[in-house]
């Protein structure tokens, strides 16, 4: 009897294992996967936004999953292969357009862009959200310029603060080299070229491109040009610079931690979200209370070109028209309605448009000094080259290349290998 009972129990387990996700009712239920884009990685904030949406659209239920930058891409790729991709994803257009869209997994959102949108959304963002065939796989919500940060107290201590323009937040390559020299006399870890993975790689790309005004791709975004003379010169400079260490054991997030801990004097992975962070101290201060100043990347001509980040929503084509329709409703609500102000504020980034459906967005951060100061960096936004094909493979090859340079490999050979790999992926 006891054994029979045990057997029944086991059988029950086999069947009950079907336990899985899914809200069930007559409603359309859609899933949203989001990367930690400011507050969009925090369930308390997102829950409020979702609640507002569901109150206005009672027929639609949204469940949210939170991705991480380190392995989020792998996770989406696995899910696509498992035919369990989400309905909606919140991400930057580069990964969507260049990959999943091109591979046929995304819904073309060109029909979401009406004439008012085209008038309201910044042209540079529009250009980034459409591919050459005129398809748009992402409807944008917010944007920022990625920059770097310095520990002002450390700079002052060695007299390097005179080398930076604290008002305009700019400096030249020569000033950067001199500052690193001064700082390195006190601290062997002035800065780290992190290359343990792809996390935060926009920082290393922008640094290298800016030092001698190199570019990452050609102007048409068809070919990788990291092997240009300017980029090689920049990499050789960094590899030989005392105090700047190539570190394959950390990624961008670790670098930010080290900077906040006061171990590094500079961080190459930075943006307004990091500047506003209050986890361990007030915004704009390191854990020990040193002052953090956002800076543009140093460049030889003094005119930086910052790498932009654009975030928005894409829809996966899971073959269910009702879900796609519901997902579109969701996008319009978050990115083109009076609710957009809250959705943008949640991200702690800037709106991609002056007004959403006539609702003014220019004043949402009024009274926030840190945001106002950061606005000075926005005009330096450079070319949005991330739409180049083969982007995901190129990103992977990028940190592998940095690891090689860091371990003393010949720079020219290493970048040549990078370009071969990346261009082969682009040609596919």
């Amino acid at each position, binding site marked *: 009897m006891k054994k029979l009972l045990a057997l029944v129990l086991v059988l029950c387990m086999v069947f009950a294992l079907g336990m899985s996700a899914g809200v069930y009712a007559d409603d359309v239920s859609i899933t949203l996967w989001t990367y930690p884009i400011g507050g969009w990685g925090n369930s308390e904030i997102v829950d409020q936004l979702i609640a507002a949406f569901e109150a206005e659209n009672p027929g639609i239920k949204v469940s949210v999953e939170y991705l991480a930058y380190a*392995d989020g891409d792998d996770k989406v790729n696995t899910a696509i292969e498992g035919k369990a991709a989400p309905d909606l994803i919140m991400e930057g257009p580069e990964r969507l357009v260049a990959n999943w869209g091109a591979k*046929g997994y995304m819904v073309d959102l060109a029909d979401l862009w009406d004439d008012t949108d085209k008038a309201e959304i910044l042209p540079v963002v529009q250009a980034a959200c459409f591919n050459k065939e005129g398809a748009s796989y992402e409807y944008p919500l917010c944007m920022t310029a990625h920059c770097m940060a310095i520990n002002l107290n450390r700079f002052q201590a060695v007299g390097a603060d005179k080398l930076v323009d604290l008002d305009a937040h700019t400096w030249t390559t020569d000033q950067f080299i001199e500052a690193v020299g001064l700082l390195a006399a006190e601290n062997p870890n002035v800065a780290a070229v992190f290359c343990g993975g792809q996390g935060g790689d926009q920082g290393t790309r922008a640094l290298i491109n800016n030092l001698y005004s190199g570019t990452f791709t050609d102007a048409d975004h068809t070919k990788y040009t990291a092997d240009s003379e300017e980029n090689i010169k920049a990499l050789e400079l960094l590899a030989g610079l005392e105090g700047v260490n190539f*570190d394959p054991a950390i990624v961008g997030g670790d670098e930010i931690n080290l900077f906040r801990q006061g171990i590094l004097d500079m961080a190459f992975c930075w943006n307004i979200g990091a500047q506003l962070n209050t986890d361990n101290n007030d915004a704009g201060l390191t854990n020990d209370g040193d002052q953090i100043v956002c800076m543009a990347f140093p460049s030889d001509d003094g005119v930086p070109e910052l790498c932009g980040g654009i975030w928005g929503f894409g829809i996966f084509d899971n073959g269910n028209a009702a879900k796609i329709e519901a997902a579109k409703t969701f996008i319009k609500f978050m990115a083109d309605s009076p609710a957009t102000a809250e959705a943008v504020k949640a991200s702690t980034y800037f709106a991609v448009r002056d007004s959403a459906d006539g609702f003014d967005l220019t004043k949402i951060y009024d009274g926030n000094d840190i945001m106002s100061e950061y606005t000075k960096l926005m005009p330096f936004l450079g070319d949005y080259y991330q739409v180049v094909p083969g982007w995901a493979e190129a990103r992977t090859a990028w940190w592998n290349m940095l690891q090689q340079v860091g371990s003393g490999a010949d720079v020219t050979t290493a970048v040549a290998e990078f370009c071969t790999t990346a261009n082969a992926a682009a040609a596919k």
Partner: protein
Amino acid sequence: MRKSSGLTQNLRRQETIAGYLFLLPSLVFFLTFVVYPMFMCIYTSFFDSNMGKDAVDTFIGLGNYKELFQDKVFLGALRNTVLIVVVAVPTVCAFSLWVASAITDMKPWLTSAFRVIFYLPVVTGSVAVTVVWKWMYNNYYGIFNYLLKGMGVIDKNINWLGDARYALWCIIIILFTTSVGQPIVLYVSALGNVDTSLVEAAEVDGATQMQVFWKIKWAQIMPTTLYILVITTINSFQCFALIQLLTSGGPNHSTDTVMYYIYYTAFKLYRYGYGNAMGVVLMIIIALLSAVQFKLGQAQD
């Protein structure tokens, strides 16, 4: 005898049916979730199969395999995998046998306490343990650099996980600490079960400790040793979490294992056919290794 042949045949048929019925539940899982994917893996390895909704697999014969043996990263990964197994398996066995013999003569509560302690990293879970080790290895504030510098052994911080010379060894050390728990428990009990009359007889005959150990105890704990060899080999081949969480195969692919490289090829480079070809190569190696191990085990019986 002739008369009963019908009966025997009947019995035999019955036995065959019963045999398969008992085998059935296990076989269903084995065939569906191991053998079928294994064949699919072999099949796909002959195709250029990539990610994409409308991607069509094209047959390229042995193309993937040809590329494989020219792929320096793969060969390096294969070397690392073999290195991990070759280093980890004997050291785990030897170390756990030594610890077991050291703690087995202690007071029972002490033996228990040590047994629990050496089992802790196993039950704590590899992800949790890895988080701590990552901190210990940290270049800037990790405990190893802190202590070694404090003791004056090194004067410059070592970037343990960021240096191709040390990274793989660092991973092997973590793998080691999470692998010895079970073997120690096994050896403690195995040593406790050794026939004491034989040991005493040998001691009366004037055998040294060493002789007693190798001539009597070693032979008696042989089955345990074999079992430990098998489970440690399985464990070492499956080392994945440590690499994914600590180094992503870097620096310069120095900690890539075949297991990690398959994952990398599939989900970072989207090359499924190529990844499957690697899987097949590894499958062949492991099957051969298992067969050898099994034959060794049978020879011991």
